[in-house]
């Protein structure tokens, strides 16, 4: 008989208390990545702390400068949000392309960011938009959040409550599918804020990262042709049966070009 316990706190504070009391407990957001790992025996938590009972974690709020999305907002909720569609359509597009219909109905933005899967989409969007990740104890810039393979700046016991995403002038996301998992083999999020351009890549490295050469070229001229001739080094990029590091490196400017075209569209 299973001895795993389940908790459904009503507030973030209560969740934090539960988490602090049990180092082998795991927060359950949507569970779409965690439960398969549990099922395959890669993960064996002794307790689940489900964040689904905390209403404020599901809120999506927008003002002219930023959109704040509660950690427990599902991908479907983000994709269908009028505010998101109006203010950052590229973000709605990211959300509508994550996983599949069933995953989008359960998976959450907080869960996705905390997991920092090297091939997931939200990290590229968060990094590309220069998001701020709010936790129960502090605010973290996306630039300092993604630390490595399934590794973030979150400390033990820390809980993401919301992510705040600045509204860009333009943005777009282009995802190149790994043929089997349909995660991003490479995904590129491009955002323009005045004279600043951010280019964030997922799928290609240990975690989402920015590409300075492309950002510089696009800052000079936000046009597709600015990506031509930009060479991304394959060093430290992922390599597997679906694509070598060289292939991924090659795809980054190609997809960035397409994202720029789409952003301008």
């Amino acid at each position, binding site marked *: *008989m*299973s001895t795993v316990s389940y908790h459904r706190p009503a507030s973030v504070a209560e969740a934090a208390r539960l988490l602090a009391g049990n180092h082998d407990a795991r927060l359950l957001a949507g569970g779409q990545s965690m439960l398969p790992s549990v099922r*395959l*025996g890669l993960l064996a938590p002794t307790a689940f702390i489900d964040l689904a009972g905390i209403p404020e974690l599901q809120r999506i709020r927008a003002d002219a400068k930023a959109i704040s999305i509660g950690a427990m907002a599902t991908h479907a909720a983000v994709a269908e949000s009028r505010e998101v569609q109006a203010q950052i359509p590229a973000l709605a597009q990211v959300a509508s392309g994550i996983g599949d219909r069933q995953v989008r109905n359960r998976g959450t933005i907080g869960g996705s960011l905390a997991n920092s899967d090297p091939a997931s989409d939200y990290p590229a969007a968060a990094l590309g938009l220069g998001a701020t990740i709010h936790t129960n104890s502090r605010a973290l810039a996306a630039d300092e959040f993604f630390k490595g393979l399934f590794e973030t700046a979150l400390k033990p016991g820390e809980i993401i409550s919301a992510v705040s995403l600045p509204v860009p002038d333009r943005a777009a996301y282009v995802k*190149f599918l790994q*043929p*089997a*998992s*349909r*995660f991003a083999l490479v995904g590129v999020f491009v955002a323009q804020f005045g004279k600043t351009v951010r280019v964030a890549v997922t799928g290609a490295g240990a975690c989402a990262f920015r590409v300075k050469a492309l950002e510089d070229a696009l800052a000079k001229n936000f046009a597709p042709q600015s990506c031509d001739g930009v060479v991304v080094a394959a060093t430290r990029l992922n390599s597997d*049966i*679906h*694509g*070598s590091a060289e*292939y991924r490196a*090659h*795809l980054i400017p*190609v997809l960035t070009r397409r994202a720029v075209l789409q952003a301008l569209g």
Partner: protein
Amino acid sequence: MNASRTSLIGRSVERKEDYRFITGAGQYTDDISLPQQSYACFVRSPHAHARIRAIETAAAHAAPGVLAIFTGKDFAAIGGLPCGWLITSMDGTPMKEPKHPVIAEDVVRHVGDQVAIVIADSLAEAKAAAALIEVDYDVLPAVVDTATAARNATAIHSVAPDNICYTWAIGDAAAVDAAFAKAAHVTRLSFINNRLIPNAIEPRAANALYARGDDSYTLYVTSQNPHVERLLMTAFVLGLPEHKVRVVAPDVGGGFGSKIYLYAEECALVWASKRVGRPIKWTAERSESFLTDAHGRDHVTTAELALDKDGKFLALRVDTTANMGAYLSTFASCIPTILYATLLAGQYATPQIYCRVQAVFTNTAPVDAYRGAGRPEATYVLERIVELAARELKIDPVELRRRNFIRTFPYATPVALTYDTGDYEATLKRVLEIADVKGFSARKAASAAKGLLRGIGYSCYIEACGIAPSNIAGALGARAGLYEAGEVRVHPTGKVTVFTGSHSHGQGHETTFAQVVAQMLGIGLDDVDIQHGDTAKVLFGVGTYGSRSLAVGGSAIVKAVDKVIAKGKKIAAHLLEAGDSDIEFVNGEFRVVGTDRKKAFAEVAFAAYVPHNYPLDKLEPGLNENAFYDPTNFTFPAGSYVCEAEVDPSTGVVRIDRFAACDDFGNVVNPMIVEGQVHGGLAQGIGQALREGCAYNSDGQLVTGSFTDYAMPRADDLPQFVVETARGTPCTHNPLGVKGCGEAVAIGSPPAVINAIVDALAGLGVRDVAMPATPYRVWQTIQAAKR
């Protein structure tokens, strides 16, 4: 049969079996739970090749809920899993048949090989206990690569020290050499036919029950052929009396070949069910399916085609190395030989063909038939090399095919088959129309304007199916008959239950067979039910594979219906006080020829079961007939395909924009069902060409061990297909004139896709693209061509 009076034959009636599937009322093996149910979990080897030093089971035995644990030692006295086809090597020696133990004895030979079975009250307890079993392995070097297995210093089986199972050949080597010597042109190509994992969406499962009361066993199992499963299991593995074992294949969620075979798990369950005294259920996790279902294809081939100056084929020479995996699966040995090399004539009148096949063992899962089985590999050889020859000779590929078509039938090929009928020009001509080949150049230009490379590819295939004449198969090494059995049981009210040895796992037999019987007996479709998949109900069966169900199983039913009608005529003659020969059976009525005196089918059935006014002195009561049908030849479906693909040279992405198919399946009973088979075959063929490729690393670990790495085609990966079934050339030697349609499209479609990609990339100097043509691989091919 008389098609002119038909209304049910050739009609797309909705399927009788659908209601239970669309309402969730289907009963698949895992849906069946028995009183006192227990559950099994297998401990499997994490290594591709290792010696088992010791197995420590004490902790597992002590775990909660555990009923029993068995290891290879417990099974040592039991037979291995047999191979059903003996192939004889060129030197006259029989193929090497190493024992395939139910549970590994001292050596494991592929990742996933069974090491122990744990049986517990619940599945969770079985799994938990299995995790406590400690196996001490002495890891051995793994043999993985097909091409080099025979040169590998490591031997997987002591009976095959060079890892060679057999070296077999067909055709006249000297005549082929002579033809090559005088050829104006020779086209050569070496390639791999990629290894595939069948992945029926229902995983394999079994539930075995022992009844002490009558010392009998019942096995529910995901099988395409329950009688063959029982025969092999009882006679060769467990040594049980065949009549004491009932095998039921209930609703089965797809097979594609992978559920033909007798697998270790179900043997272990049946054996253990008596020892445990409770029914035992096992259902494969998908990860287990990837590791242990028999895989398909995996050939390494060099082919050479000799042509004269006019582009006429003079000879074909093929050399293939085929991977058998770690053990010989049930039909493994005949796939790359009998079902492969005999297909190398295709639609062409090539006078001389020689093919040599070397089958090797490797430390990978067993390889056996997967949709098409040998024939896709042969078609790929032929349709790629023909396309390449056309390109080298600068002859239009359609024209080159036409120049070499077989046009007179029957036609005896140089590789043992005799095609009874066909019209290859007809399907080719039609597919060129429905594919709008005329519009290709405009579409190519439109693609080019977007920076995309568009190509067109053709494939003209033939298939030998309706497997098989037993005497011919026997002469070629089959250890089983390949007929089919059917029984038509007319009930006293005139309703009919038909029992067939074929098994439906998606093919729609319950509808198609009912159409045939209802039509022949002039009764309603709802008055006929088709029963299949239960050895306790069906007299015998050889099963469903090799596109044989309607051509062979359907013919057996036709024969049985003929017997019912013949007996009915005698009964009617008595009732109508006429001579037997004066009775005709038309539209469900027995009539005295030339009069209005008649008896309805149901009246005659009633008389047979209530024989008060009945010729009991001459005729037995009852109306129940069975028949066995053994075909006199294979059937030869054929067709032509056109694929148009757009390649994005900057990413390597291939998009199939159009795919048109025109097939000749002979007569068609239910066009809707046939079209569904075409769609499914296309998805699997395109899957092989573009997405699916099983990969092991050099240690023998399966890299593509889940749906997240093995790319199954999804809805948005495929185009809308344009398919048409030709009016066709009916098969000349079975009563329905049908040829079979299950495998055809998976056979014919992969080369059309690759030919289209190569055509698209020809301007870059690309001569070949390996399957699966994933974006990464296509991009690599383009980069290599640029260098």
